[in-house]
């Protein structure tokens, strides 16, 4: 019985996490939750055991307290009971806040185990939340969404879902505390979140470009290698943007670090160097969340370092590592791009009208190569605010002499009838075949599908990622909301947006495109369907 309850609860948590609003997606989510529920059972069992133990302890401790607080508890419980039971169909909008928290206690009021402090706290918070929500609904505000995100915080506090990465649990104070501790140990300052976050995204970091991490760093940086500091700044200011550029710059910085490295006495290079890199990586992660490609590159470098035998001389080890990094860049990025260009040129025929979105270095490369192969084609560059990277793509293509048209994403359905192919870049390819890319990509893919235009995604295999993601809410990146502010004719409308409490700015960086909308993925291994990503990943793992 309890187990079922737990499972139910986990489902709710999942739903809250993903912040589903759409009906269709919800169904999928529920199914997923069911599947995951099965997997979670072991964990859940363990947790249950722990909880029971705790309850016993607290019983002994708080026997007298419980009597005092019993009045309060009954109140709390009654409110819990009165709240609607969480059925699987209950929508997120229905204020599940007070429900999810005290659920396990509700059906067994006879037992009434005395609650731990945290539980009580959570309960109190849930009650407040419910009150607030009711108030807001009276006002006529679309409040419940906020309530959802907050209640989720409460549930998380109660029972942390394990193995969730830190960067998607920003609203969980425990996780933040842990992060702060870790950073303190690594002597990296903690970057503070900036501004008000739009509901459903409170679990993500949101930084301000105007408050760089270097503010809290000593100026001749002693803890962090200067190359890393520079790189971090370039990431956070967007000077180095795009996952290829970021990976190359990262490896370049690593090269400098390795060059300047000498093993301290009584240490082993393979261990010490990895430890040395760790704070650097968490520094970079705070400057801007790492991209999947960078994650893979870091994994590779770490593996290469740990592969170095202990009897290897330092100079030789360093040389080996530098060579490995060079090889990685050459093999995985430069040559891969070449291979992809070669195979995708086959797909470009004379008279094609190709639509591209944003500024993908790989797609640009392909188009330039195709031009050199004397293909006759025309390009439509679709762009979107706030970064307007499309302009850069446009500049590069026009400079090469490719005839281009430039439209904003709002005009995509207008322009699509004349398009014969859509070429898209990717930030990462996920294990379930979803394509993670610049926000807006999925919209373009969707419209292209509707117009029956083939969508080709170009992606090097080093961007393949074992993660699974079905929506853009759970794991994403929030850019500086101030980027959305525009000055036109000397007027800046959103200048004081922070002073308007009902107003939130959302500057989302990525979205995911379901495999249904993608016809083909072009990799250096050849053209594959989206669904073959796990295969490639498996093969890669065997290789390494």
């Amino acid at each position, binding site marked *: 019985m309890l187990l079922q309850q737990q499972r139910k609860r986990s489902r709710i948590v999942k739903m809250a996490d993903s912040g589903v609003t759409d009906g269709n997606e919800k169904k999928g989510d529920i199914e997923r939750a069911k599947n995951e529920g099965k997997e979670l059972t072991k964990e859940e069992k363990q947790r249950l055991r722990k909880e029971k133990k705790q309850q016993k302890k607290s019983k002994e401790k708080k026997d007298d307290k419980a009597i005092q607080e019993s009045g309060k508890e009954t109140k709390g419980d009654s409110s819990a009971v009165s709240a609607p039971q969480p059925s699987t169909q209950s929508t997120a909008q229905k204020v599940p806040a007070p429900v999810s928290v005290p659920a396990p206690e509700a059906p067994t009021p006879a037992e009434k185990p005395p609650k731990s402090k945290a539980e009580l706290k959570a309960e109190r918070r849930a009650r407040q939340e419910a009150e607030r929500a009711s108030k807001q609904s009276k006002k006529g505000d679309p409040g419940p969404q906020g309530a959802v995100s907050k209640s989720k915080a409460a549930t998380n506090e109660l029972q942390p879902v394990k193995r969730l990465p830190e960067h998607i649990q920003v609203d969980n104070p425990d996780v933040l505390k842990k992060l702060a501790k870790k950073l303190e140990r690594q002597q990296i300052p903690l970057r503070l979140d900036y501004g008000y976050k739009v509901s459903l995204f409170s679990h993500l970091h949101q930084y301000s470009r105007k408050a760089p991490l270097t*503010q809290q760093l000593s100026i001749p940086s002693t803890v962090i290698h200067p190359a890393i500091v520079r790189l971090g700044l370039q990431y956070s200011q967007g000077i180095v943007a795009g996952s290829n550029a970021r990976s*190359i710059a990262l490896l370049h910085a690593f*090269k*400098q670090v390795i060059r300047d490295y000498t093993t301290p006495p009584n240490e082993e290079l393979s261990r010490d160097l990895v430890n040395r890199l760790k704070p650097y990586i968490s520094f970079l992660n705070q400057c801007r969340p790492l991209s999947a490609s960078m994650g893979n590159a870091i994994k590779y470098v770490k593996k290469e370092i740990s592969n170095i035998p202990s009897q290897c001389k330092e100079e030789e080890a360093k040389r080996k590592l530098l060579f490995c990094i060079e090889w990685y860049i050459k093999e995985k990025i430069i040559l891969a791009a070449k291979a992809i260009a070669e195979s995708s040129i086959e797909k470009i025929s004379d008279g094609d009208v190709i639509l591209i979105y944003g500024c993908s270095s790989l797609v640009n490369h392909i188009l330039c190569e195709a031009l050199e192969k004397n293909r006759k084609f025309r390009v439509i560059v679709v762009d979107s605010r706030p970064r307007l990277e499309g302009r*850069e793509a446009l500049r590069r293509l026009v400079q090469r002499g490719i005839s281009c048209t430039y439209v904003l994403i709002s005009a995509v359905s207008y322009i699509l009838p004349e398009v014969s192919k859509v070429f898209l870049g990717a930030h990462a390819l996920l294990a379930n075949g979803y394509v993670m890319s610049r926000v807006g990509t999925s919209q373009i893919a969707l419209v292209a599908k509707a117009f029956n235009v083939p969508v080709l995604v170009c992606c090097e295999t080093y961007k393949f990622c074992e993660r699974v993601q079905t929506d853009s809410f759970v794991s994403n990146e929030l850019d500086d909301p101030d980027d959305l502010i525009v000055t036109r004719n000397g007027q800046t409308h959103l200048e004081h947006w922070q002073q308007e409490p009902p107003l939130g700015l959302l500057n989302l960086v990525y979205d995911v495109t379901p495999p249904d909308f993608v016809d083909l993925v072009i990799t250096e291994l050849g053209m594959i369907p989206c669904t073959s990503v796990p295969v490639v990943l498996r093969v890669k793992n065997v290789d390494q």
Partner: protein
Amino acid sequence: MRLPPLSYRDSRSSWTKNTGTDTMELQAVLMAAGGGSRMTDLTYNTPKPMLPVGNKPLMWYPLNLLERVGFEEVIVITTKEVQKMMSTDSKMKRDIKMKMEVVCVPEDGDMGTADALRHIQQKIKTDILVVSCDLITDVALHEVVDLFRAHNATLAMLMSKAHEFTETVPGQKGKKRTAEQRDFVGVDESGKRLLFMANEADLEDGLSVRKSIIRKHPRMHIKTGLVDAHLYCLKKAVVDFLTENKSISSIRGELVPYLVRKQFSKTTNSQKVKEDLEDQTQKKNDCSTNHELLISSRDEPLLQLAQERSCWNDHRGDMSEAYHGGKLRCYVHIMEQGLCYRVNTLAAYIEANRQAPKLFEEPPVHPSAIISERCQVGSDSIIGERCQIAEKTSIKRSTIGISSNVKEKVKVTNSIVMHSVTIEEGCNIQGSVICSNAIIGRGADLKYCLVGNGQRIEPEAPCASLWLTQIRVSAVCVRVCVCVFVFFYVCVRACACVCVHYIDGEVREHGQNRTTRNSTAAACSHTHTHTHTRTLLTREHSHAPFVLSFHTTVAKLILSNRFLHTKTCLCGWNTALCHHLFWISTAERTNEVIVGTDQLMEI
């Protein structure tokens, strides 16, 4: 100060220490060898770096700035004299925990800042941060350094909006403030990239901007009213370039404009060299220097690759890549708010003293000062160590230096009193600067005066007196700082008034051409016989190229100020000067016309 605390500063489990390599990110260089040529009144006995500002030596401020942001070492370029004073100064020893490496440069040898850098070239291992000793600021230094880092810049510098000095400055008439020659600073749309730089003095007629800049940056904002804080981040390659190129002697005057210009000069293109054959050799030179300036990273191609892949561009509107493919980039951070003073003039010095208390959180009254209970000390005043302040005194908006002694019934407002000054009973001091070791006699009434080092102002007395000359002769230049004439004058209403007459002539002789350069002379005009007495000190800058001896200058000045009509007692004068003054006085008596080199003067 107001910056967030740096908790990661002391921790040096860092890459630098462990690696044992000498590579650091930045080396700090403090330039503290300047003589303070624009405020010779103050600096002729105390070198500029050691001038007290808020009871701390001036160079304490930049050192503190560096220490606060996390520098652990600094190279101090200074003179022997300053070094000696530094070693005895307790404040410097106690407050500055950085490792200071003092490098002495010969005094008074015309050594520019770039020369100084060349001098210490051996010690420079990496990029440098050059700070001038007269900078007082609360800038968040990371802003400047981040520009340097993020854009891989060759030069990053700090500028600030110029401050209006509202305080009345002793020795300056209201209108006399000829504005300093303005700088024109051109920045791009982001306001960060430094595109253009020119000084009013260099412009002959009108401002001309090169086409190559306009082509690349069609929108350029030219700003005026900015003060260069003399804080520069420079690539190591620049120092190496300096050693190659010996003609550049000053950073601000020559190097910075050169770098700013070079951003847009044609890059190493063989075609271009062919184009104008006439100055081919010069071009070649440029090419080689350019080439030198560019060596920054060993992995240039890789960085280039990352840049190519990145979808970022610093500009839009034309077809060229980020930074227009240029490798040499200069950036500037312009402070919109906050304190930023360069203490290089008397006015700035006074202003800095007023603002200094805001910069550090120390009790304004030093605990070792002895202050009697029945006196008023304003909260905006600073009282130094071991001061003695007697009863019934009132001190407002003033700084009282270390070991000074203020006797009864003294009123000090808006003034700066340096170290070991004695102020006798009943004095009234307003808006004045009193240098170290001076003694102010009983009942003196000083308004907007500047009293030189070790001067003694007699108690109110109907007689006038003149004091002191100092002539310093060094091998290269003859520098004559002349005297403070103090002369008392009892006006109609028996109100004591002190007039401080100050003449400072600076005569420099270069080689065989006996050209007098920058003959700065200041003299007092005269006291008004009105009821409201006020001392006026004038300062005359003669920019015209006089060719005349020092004595004539003095004579001319004295005459032009018409103050010899009162009887003056000449005592304690240097023989030569006395002789000339006598000569003048004879001239006066006979009502003769004295002929200067370029003009007639009538009495």
